[in-house]
């Protein structure tokens, strides 16, 4: 029962008859609600709690054409020990890299709890043949990636070919084996919140362990309303089936305040059960240092300078 699919079997059938169940999102109301939650005032010990949690939830990410083994090695060190001057600061959840750099990352985090995640499936566009995508997934898993961040085929989704999108996720999930699958919707390309909800449900139904907002390659990424839409979809799947799907906002979350706002959204939408790295991740690079600065400020009472935090 607990592992029943999010939607009835046969999701590959034309989706339209199911649309009433999928439901829609009112743009103005969802943005208003997200705006209200963003105004929660999180202070003192509740803020420290949130920030330390945010560190544990971070997928420290580098996804550049210029990435090198050296860059990834530095990132991995930072992931294991984010603040060398404060051993109380926990490791992050994972490092997230391109496939070529998986072996380096695996080697560098060995012995720690930090996982290695790799983007795959022709990230970020997803515009490659399915076989090529599956090969890529199998390759990263073989080379030690614990988690795979795939992209959905937005072209197929926007053309209404939902079954193609669904099948592809199912195949990728098979290719993952024991590795965890995060499904990137690239919400900035989906056009409406209705589509974000539809894609979220589709990704969960197809077996995604996480749903993730964005590649980080678009200016419009993990906004609070998008996160709220996806969290509500996760909650609905949980209510229907008892299955807990994780969530990863990625892209555009650069400072501690935003991270806390996202956590408030989680707390007040799906509840504390999701306040764990098993079910929640931040995909970010520059966020970590801002959180570290804020944490030290909370501990010392002094506002901090970036000069005291390493820029790996």
């Amino acid at each position, binding site marked *: 029962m607990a592992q029943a699919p999010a939607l009835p079997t046969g999701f590959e059938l034309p989706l339209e008859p199911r649309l*009433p169940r999928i*439901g*829609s*999102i*009112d743009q*103005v*109301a*969802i943005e*208003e*609600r997200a705006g*209200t939650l963003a*105004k*929660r*005032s*999180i*202070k*003192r*010990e*509740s*803020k420290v*709690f*949130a920030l330390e949690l945010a560190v544990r939830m971070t997928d420290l990410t580098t996804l550049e054409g210029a990435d090198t083994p050296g860059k990834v090695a530095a990132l991995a060190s930072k992931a294991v020990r984010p603040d060398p001057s404060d051993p109380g600061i926990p490791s992050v959840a994972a490092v997230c890299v391109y496939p070529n750099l998986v072996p380096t990352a695996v080697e560098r985090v060995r012995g720690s709890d930090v996982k290695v995640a790799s983007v795959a499936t022709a990230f970020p566009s997803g515009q490659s043949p399915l076989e090529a995508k599956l090969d890529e997934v199998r390759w990263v898993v073989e080379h030690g990636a614990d988690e795979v961040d795939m992209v959905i085929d937005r072209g197929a989704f926007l053309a209404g070919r939902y079954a193609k999108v669904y099948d592809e996720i199912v195949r990728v999930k098979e290719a993952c084996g024991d590795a965890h699958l995060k499904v990137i919707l690239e919400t900035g390309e989906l056009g409406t919140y209705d589509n974000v909800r539809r894609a979220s449900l589709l990704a969960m139904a197809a077996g995604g362990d996480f749903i993730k907002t964005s590649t980080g390659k678009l200016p419009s990424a993990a906004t609070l309303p998008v996160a709220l839409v996806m969290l*509500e979809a996760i909650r609905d799947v949980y*209510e229907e089936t*008892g299955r807990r799907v994780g969530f990863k906002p990625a892209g555009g979350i650069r400072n501690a305040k935003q991270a806390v706002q996202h*956590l408030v959204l989680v*707390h*007040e939408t799906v*509840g*504390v*059960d999701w*306040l764990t790295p098993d079910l929640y991740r931040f995909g970010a690079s520059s966020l970590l240092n801002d959180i570290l600065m804020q944490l030290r400020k909370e501990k010392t009472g002094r506002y901090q300078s970036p000069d005291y935090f390493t820029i790996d």
Partner: protein
Amino acid sequence: MTELERKQDRAPIPSGWEYATAPESREIVQLRERYGHFVGGEWLEPKESYATIDPASEEPLAEIGQATDEEVGLAVSAAREAFENGWSALPGSERAKYLFRIARVLQERSREFAVLESLNGGKPIRESRDVDLPLAAAHFFYYAGWADKLEYAFPNRKPQPLGVAGQIIPWNFPLLMLAWKIAPALAAGNTVVLKPAETTPLSALLFCDVLRQAELPPGVVNIVTGDGRAGAALVKAEVDKVAFTGSTDVGKAIQRELAGTGKKLTLELGGKAANVIFDDAALDQAVEGIINGIYFNQGHVCCAGSRLLVQESIYEPVISKLKRRLQTLRVGDPLDKNTDVGAINSRAQLEKIEELVRSGEEEGAEIYQPPCRLPEKGYWFVPTVFTNVAQSYRIAQEEIFGPVLSVLTFRTPDEAVEKANNTPYGLSAGVWTEKGSRILSMAQKLRAGVIWANTYNRFDPSSPFGGYKESGFGREGGRHGLEPYLKFE
């Protein structure tokens, strides 16, 4: 196990992450020990007085004047004198500038007013800060612009001010209701005697300091305080117009009192609004709309969506989402920035809510209240949902004016309309559906002055507000809100 049973068994969200308190500072508000009446630009020492309190702590805040007939008469005379000696002859463009000034000063001092409003009224600072104050300032700003354009609002009608307007406002939005009353009255060229509610006089009294800063001529706005006796005296005094917002019973009494006098009257009275949810609605936003409809300002809202009409086919998911959402409402200190539901305004109101809720249980409705820690002192009521409510129950008929929702169901649009309209009130209604033609059809058929479609409890100075049937007559807001303060040749 059926799906339905399984859902109901699910445990509530554990509260693992406690938010630290985030109180807004009280220091910004400087209260005097005692206040008189503001008459002719000066403070009139009251003959009688009473204490106004903070409903969240029951601590007294200040001594307030209880206006006698004579004191009310003095205020009306001051308003008359100001009307005749200058204000009515002032060019509209000059009146406009006073109103613009008032709007600006309110914006500048908005935090101070927001804190005071929460302190004296019990409403969450989040609402007084984000709703009451911005809207109050906007109201003055909007009507300021009309003051020198009345002939465009009423072409060929030669609009003229009435004279002195007597205005009586309720305790649920003290400063905002003051703005709704005073702004159009002054824009139209009248002078004003306003009586704030007995339990929430402080923001109106602080507003007198805004008038000082705006250098409004003395007597143009006069404030007298006290309970219903002061209101009754104002209605009977030599005013040319009465504007009242409050309960339907008092509204009827005022209408009776003014019978045959020819005095102009506008009434904004009670409501028992239906919030109608169709099965194709955007559910989570509809649930948010239900929450905002009934728990906004502790349900102390005349247009509150106090009757939820859910299409039977989505009854289960709506109720389960609603209950879940209810658990995340934060009830407590009105000055805490994270509070969603504040204190009940007064002991009398709390007792009225408790009495009606008891009647709901006795009549057979099923009550749901989320687990909730309430402060020990002060007046509090847990956000409440009644299911299994029949149309005939008191909780489905009478205005509770508290955080209490009655849920009824319907099967077809016609049945929804019939049930929604089955009330002597007609202030507002809500409709939630993704189907455009159905929205317009419902908007047409619901007999109420304000229809919120896919939203609820929105207000704007440019948007006329007011009721059908026993919810009153006359409109506040917009061009239409000027008309009750004018006469025409």
